[in-house]
């Protein structure tokens, strides 16, 4: 992982980050070409052209979940090791994850409206995504309101770990709940089978979003590392 690189808990170097950004930009451009040029037009059941938003929605939802996992893992490691790099990883991952979850929720709504005639479907995946997005917002606000960076880091770590522990419960409860209210939950499940070109495009999009996440985390971690150094220098001067 980017911020885990290097000794003395330094973040990834400038050259490494620029290389990562360059590769990510290239991958994303290729991804756009695949989505609009290579992937076949979907069947009527999938909503024809609007179905292409699928290549943004599904990868962003999956990478959002991964970002939560990374943030919770970084939080556990921070509470155990108490080194700044793990906190920077958890924090940067939460920030990047908030943005990526927002993309997932927005694209999900835009896709659901023409296909299922509703902006929101109360299924387990949607509920879990929304809940984790809220936990991330709580995470960031906790940090913003904390009196010191260290206390904010510990409190936010607890929030992320609690969020992760709640994941199976939220998923199960929402799933059972949706089962009880089937007449109000129409939609996913019967989304048709994927042609192989669609599948490859989806996998490539997933990689592209993975790079986007890595770039954001690397940049934010590096910024925080610089922030911390500035703070140390300021104290030395004062």
């Amino acid at each position: 992982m980017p911020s885990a690189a290097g000794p003395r808990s330094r973040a990834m170097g400038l050259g490494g980050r620029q290389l990562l950004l360059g590769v990510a930009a290239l991958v994303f451009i290729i991804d756009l070409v695949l989505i609009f040029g290579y992937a076949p037009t979907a069947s009527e059941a999938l909503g024809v052209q609007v179905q292409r938003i699928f290549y943004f929605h599904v990868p962003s939802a999956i990478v959002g979940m991964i970002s939560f996992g990374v943030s919770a893992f970084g939080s556990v490691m921070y509470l155990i090791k108490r080194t700044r790099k793990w906190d920077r990883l958890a924090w940067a991952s939460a920030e990047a994850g908030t943005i990526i979850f927002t993309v997932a929720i927005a694209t999900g709504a835009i896709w659901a409206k023409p296909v299922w005639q509703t902006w929101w479907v109360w299924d387990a995946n949607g509920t879990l995504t929304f809940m984790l997005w809220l936990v991330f917002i709580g995470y960031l606000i906790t940090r913003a309101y904390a009196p010191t960076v260290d206390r904010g880091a510990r409190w936010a770590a607890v929030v992320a770990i609690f969020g992760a522990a709640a994941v199976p419960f939220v998923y199960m409860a929402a799933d059972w709940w949706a089962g009880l209210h089937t007449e109000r939950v129409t939609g996913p499940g019967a989304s048709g089978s994927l042609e192989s070109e669609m599948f490859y495009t989806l996998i490539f999009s997933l990689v592209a979003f993975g790079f986007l996440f890595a770039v954001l985390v690397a940049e934010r971690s590096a910024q925080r590392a610089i922030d911390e150094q500035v703070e140390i220098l300021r104290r030395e001067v004062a």
Partner: protein
Amino acid sequence: MRNYLRGALAIYAKDIRLEARTKETISAVLAFAIIIAFIFGFAFDPSPTIVAVVGPGIVWVAYVFTGILGMNRTFALERDRGTLDGLLLAPVSHESVYAGKLASTATIMLVVEAALFPVFLVLFDLNLFNVWFVLVALAATIGFATVGTLFSAIAVHTRAREVLLPLLFLPIVLPVIIGAVSGTDAAIAGDGWDGVGKWLQFIVAFDAVFLMLSSWAFDFVLEE
């Protein structure tokens, strides 16, 4: 283990004695709960068919909101009176402090919830005097208090304590809210264990996991 229990019990007894003498939290929270229930009467048409559908929902919205109000005071009172440091310096483990505070918060919430039974009965003809409902409410309230006590210890040290608690608390206890509403639905419909059992087990599992997690995390929260 014995010290742990004795410490927790001492803090619990202190909180309950304080509340029994001042009745500060219970009276304010109960009044707030009654107002919420009253307002709900105008949020929808309170006819029997509609109450049968939305009844469990309004009960739990009222319980959760009043619970947040009560939990905000768990540590805020100690901090305002300057007794929080004393509490943490007391010769008991932090786990004991957590357990005692959790128990007193849950007790106060349960008293308020029980006091609302007749209010719901009178205003909405919603009969909550039902052993299955009582079990669901007991399990769910312990779940709320478990997570809420921990987060209120975070919120009390921030500039935005009243706002931060619900923000952190509600997404995490979402499964308990879903379970409580669904369990209440089944209990009121008279389904007994067949309908309520699944949700009851689910909430108890949540309580167990978060009780362990919160006891562990409480130290990290209090650390200066």
